[in-house]
């Protein structure tokens, strides 16, 4: 059986799921830097501290059971603190073990990220006032613009593309709104009380 497992390992590697068993081996350029890994480990540690601080405010009254509502929060805080410390240690000593290539480019495209984020956040801020259809259209247009820029589409900023994106956004969000509000009776905010806009 061992032969075929070796073949399998090779096949898996060919399918781009190569794992790096040995921390001394060079990692793929897409695997984040050790510094970034240290930051993530520290983040986990920070979450643990936050959980512990929060757990202090949870009553420990356990009734006759012996285990109170603050038990699991403390357990999470302690385990995450240990995990955070170990992650930092891994990051400092050769990087996260067996970190698979996450795929994509080595550097983040911040501009595209800002476009998509703006779409999502504006959607959250406006949905209550301008209604589902318009809010989601704005979200769609900003996100698709960001994704077009990420894909290096030169036509992204052309006026024709913008118009096309606005129309597509409306053509998706309006039927979705009608389907959910009219047929499934789910409450989604409209601009008017008609149920159609």
């Amino acid at each position, binding site marked *: 059986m061992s032969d075929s497992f070796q073949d399998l390992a090779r096949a898996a590697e060919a399918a781009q799921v190569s794992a790096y068993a040995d921390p001394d081996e060079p990692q793929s350029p897409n695997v984040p830097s050790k510094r970034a890994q240290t930051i993530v480990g520290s983040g986990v540690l920070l979450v643990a501290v936050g959980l512990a601080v929060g757990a202090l405010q949870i009553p420990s009254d356990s009734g006759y059971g012996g*285990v109170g509502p603050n038990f699991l929060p403390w357990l999470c805080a302690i385990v995450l603190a240990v995990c955070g410390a170990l992650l930092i240690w891994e990051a400092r000593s050769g990087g996260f073990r067996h970190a698979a290539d996450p795929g994509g*480019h080595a550097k983040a495209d911040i501009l595209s990220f800002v476009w998509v984020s703006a779409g999502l956040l504006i959607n959250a801020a406006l949905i209550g006032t301008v209604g589902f259809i318009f809010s989601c259209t704005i979200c769609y247009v900003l996100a698709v613009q960001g994704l077009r820029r990420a894909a290096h589409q030169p036509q992204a900023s052309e006026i024709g593309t913008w118009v096309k994106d606005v129309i597509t956004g409306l053509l998706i969000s309006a039927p979705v709104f009608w389907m959910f509000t009219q047929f499934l009776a789910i409450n989604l905010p409209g601009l008017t009380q008609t149920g159609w806009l």
Partner: protein
Amino acid sequence: MDIFNALMAGFATAITPANLLWALVGCALGTAVGVLPGIGPAVAVAMLLPITAKVDVTASMIFFAGIYYGAMYGGSTTSILLNTPGETASMVTAMEGNKMAKSGRAGAALATAAIGSFVAGTFATVVVTLFAPYVADFAVKLGPPEYFMLMVLAFTTVSAVLGQSSLRGMTALFVGLAAGCIGMDQISGAARYTGGKMELLDGIDIVLVAVGLFAVAEVLYAAMYEGKVEESQNKLTRVHMTKRDWKRSWPAWMRGTLLGTPFGCIPAGGTEIPTFLSYATEKKLAKGEDKAEFGGKGAIEGVAGPEAANNATVTAALIPLLTLGIPTSNTTAVLLGAFQNYGINPGPQLFTSSAALVWALIASLYIGNVMLLVLNLPMVGLWVKLLKIPRPQLYAGILIFATVGAYGMRQSAFDLFLLYGIGLLGVIMRRFDFPTAPVVVGMILGPLAEAQMRNAVSIGEGSWWIFLQRPMSLTLIIIVLAVLIIPRVLKRLSEAKQAREASAA
């Protein structure tokens, strides 16, 4: 005979025109989300969870189940036709399927995948039909200590055994467990981690976490790191299998099914192990000309076996979900959330308290498998057209559906901001190779496990020895330890052996 009668009653419910329509829409939608990159069954079910507020429980569970296994059929189409492997389950199919498609045999690969999925799905449904009631009967006898240990077993396998690193798996699991703590404690009523915000008193909804981690994170990740995806699509040929293809596929389907079903039944989860094992077995057993096709022209056994194993595992995973209330994957965790929205807690009582629902659901699995075979064989050309949707438009469109799921649940803009935050977390997790399934499973199963643990310790009058004093619970502890220790020992031994061989050479 009881089972037969119950199943027939289930069919009577499932074949009402309305329920058939729900099943059909579910299967079609499931196939579509399986085919489309960037969106899977867990997130599709999560986005549609708001319908639980209005739609009858039987109809919506039939609908969700349709999405659940429809996605498995659809996933293989993408992995065979596109040269970018998607999720792990279909990655094994992609290895040989892609090679077959490149050498002009895409049709045969698609056919063997669809028929294999049907054979395995139907067999596993028979297993669910026959064994689930017995498992439920047995599970009634389990007390809180045993339940808690079963859940610990599920946590352990999801976080520490599957995936590349136990440390990152454990981190993800405990992040999920901590997220599950937010809100009102269900036993004492104490508020935990709400920070005085009323919105958090009900806890974080599973929809937000699933949609944020999978859909929003996927879109953000695509914008940040993927940019232009160079994709080449293989040509679709006529969906047809020759006599030789049939002869080679049958045994592979059978072996895949037999491998996959038991893996689904145990509360351990994951389709990776059975699909990889099936691939290895098929490769080992192939002879002569057939063997030469592995890794070259693409061997049909390498598609048939893993695809059958995948579907068998996924279908059989309904046994731990329905009888024990233990989800072992993202999608079953979200399905558990759907049950909870109706105030139903899957578990041994489900077969008595909601017998009509369970049997209608099981009957719909048989019906759904037939529907999917039809949807995926003659109509495969239709689904392939979905692959032509340009990525920017597809991904931006996903965000609209994500908004419906997240906002439709509670009509709170706060949830949309939270959704964005969870999306960012998802990007970090993907980039740094943290698994996401433990977060979702931990979050949904955490509160249940906590309740069982506290009840168990109460039964033990405050003593933790209760877990060691009961034979079944002790057995489960030993299994958990074995699952944790044995793979590590084996790895150490093989490393030591390799080192010895290297030094001898």
